[in-house]
């Protein structure tokens, strides 16, 4: 479980996040939604320690990340897997080497053990027979799946996904969503997904946090989202006619 308590962050005179308090539960897909510029990515970067918050705390199973020394921070970081918007695969490494990278750095395994684990992770995300290819030779969806394989290679306790569906076709988006959900339930990870994809929110939303003007505006699950009267939330999630129609249909079925 990850707890965020009273977290604030500003850049210069711009207040990006104000007093965010939220709990991200273990074993479910926690989604952070909000308009562009609402502070979603900054929140994720504060949680994983790429930004230091001006105020507030981030607790990883009770461990206050930003108050720990470098060695303890590194220990927590080795428990984190992250899928980036761009997949962030290392261009100069093959698919297999990308997945083996965290194992090489930290696992203390033999090469055979590392290869076995990396191949298992690649099979888990349905990437087979692509070991020797370089990231530039893969499609966007495949790159995302390799990114997930790398993220789960170290059996992470915490999984972060930044816009996992961006740039993907609807079918591949659904596959990635399903994969993230399956992995979260299978490994019991605390998963946080930053997303713009309302399709994905409606399909898989279990614990949703809506950020608006840098504040935690609304939290709830998929059913609560559909029934919510919150004007800002409705304006964001059901911005298109299609989503409004979908809401009507889904509310009828709830």
């Amino acid at each position: 479980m990850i707890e965020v308590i009273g977290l604030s962050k500003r850049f210069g005179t711009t207040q990006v996040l104000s007093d965010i308090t939220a709990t991200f539960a273990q074993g479910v897909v926690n989604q952070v939604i909000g308009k562009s510029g609402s502070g979603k990515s900054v929140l994720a970067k504060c949680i994983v320690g790429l930004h230091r918050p001006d105020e507030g705390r981030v607790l990883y199973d009770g461990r206050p990340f930003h108050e720990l020394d470098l060695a303890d921070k590194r220990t927590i970081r080795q428990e984190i897997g992250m899928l980036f918007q761009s997949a962030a695969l290392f261009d100069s490494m093959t698919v297999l080497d990308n997945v083996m990278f965290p194992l090489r750095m930290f696992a203390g395994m033999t090469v055979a053990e590392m290869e076995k684990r990396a191949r298992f992770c690649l099979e888990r995300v349905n990437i087979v027979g692509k070991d020797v290819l370089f990231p530039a030779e893969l499609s966007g969806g495949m790159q995302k799946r390799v990114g997930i394989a790398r993220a789960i290679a170290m059996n992470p306790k915490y999984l972060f996904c930044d816009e996992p569906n961006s740039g993907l076709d609807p079918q591949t988006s659904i596959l990635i969503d399903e994969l993230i959900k399956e992995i979260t339930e299978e490994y019991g990870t605390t998963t946080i997904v930053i997303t713009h994809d309302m399709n994905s929110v409606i399909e898989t939303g279990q614990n949703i946090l809506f950020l608006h003007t840098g504040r935690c505006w609304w939290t709830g699950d998929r059913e609560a989202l559909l029934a919510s009267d919150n004007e800002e939330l409705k304006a964001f999630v059901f911005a298109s006619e299609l989503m409004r129609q979908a809401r009507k249909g889904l509310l009828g079925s709830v």
Partner: protein
Amino acid sequence: MNILFHIGRYFEFLGHVFGRPERMSLYGRRVAEEVDQLGVKSLGIVALLSVFMGAVITIQTASNIDAAWIPDYVVGFTARQSVILEFSPTIISLILAGKVGSNIAAEVGTMRVKEQIDALDIMGVNSASYLILPKIVAAMLINPFLIVISMFLSIFGGWVVSGLTGVVAPNAYIQGLQWDFDPFTVTYALIKTVVFAFIITSVAAYHGYHTQGGALEVGRSSTTAVVFSSVVILIANYMLTQLLLI
């Protein structure tokens, strides 16, 4: 104030670069790869430039010596001193600042904007150390070899041109090369080379590492890296010369 900010951040960056590495065995392999990337792959351009540099120095020196009382071998002597003291260590380092420096800044900058450096940081890898330290070590190891090769090829280029054009007799040229040779000049040149190698790689990596934005900013970082490392090389060149030769 801007320059003070960069100086402060540069030294902070170096602190991270020389921080404790995670896996020394991986660093050894990375150094070997960088030796190939930064050094061996620069050999061609260094060789080409050096031969022509030596040839030009010889022709210019010979054509500027008009007085009959100056012996011919002075051309070889001047070419040797110019090549060893200045042209090979400094000019070749400036060329490498352009070739290797822009390459490093672009590579690291692209890794930054494509979030690959963030990925390393989140994994708990000291990204500055993992990416940059092997480049610095590799350049400091391989550049002295490149510069020694450059010295030989420059002097060879001068000898070839002396034979081809007749601006000076090859025998006189060789006599000049051997005249009043002080081995410390080579030591001085190699000390400069090692310092310049550190400047080229660390300044370029600093600019790449702190790139923000997209492709345009990567290009800007690359250009800034070459400009800054060239300026720092020239300042360091003056300081080292004052320190070591006077």
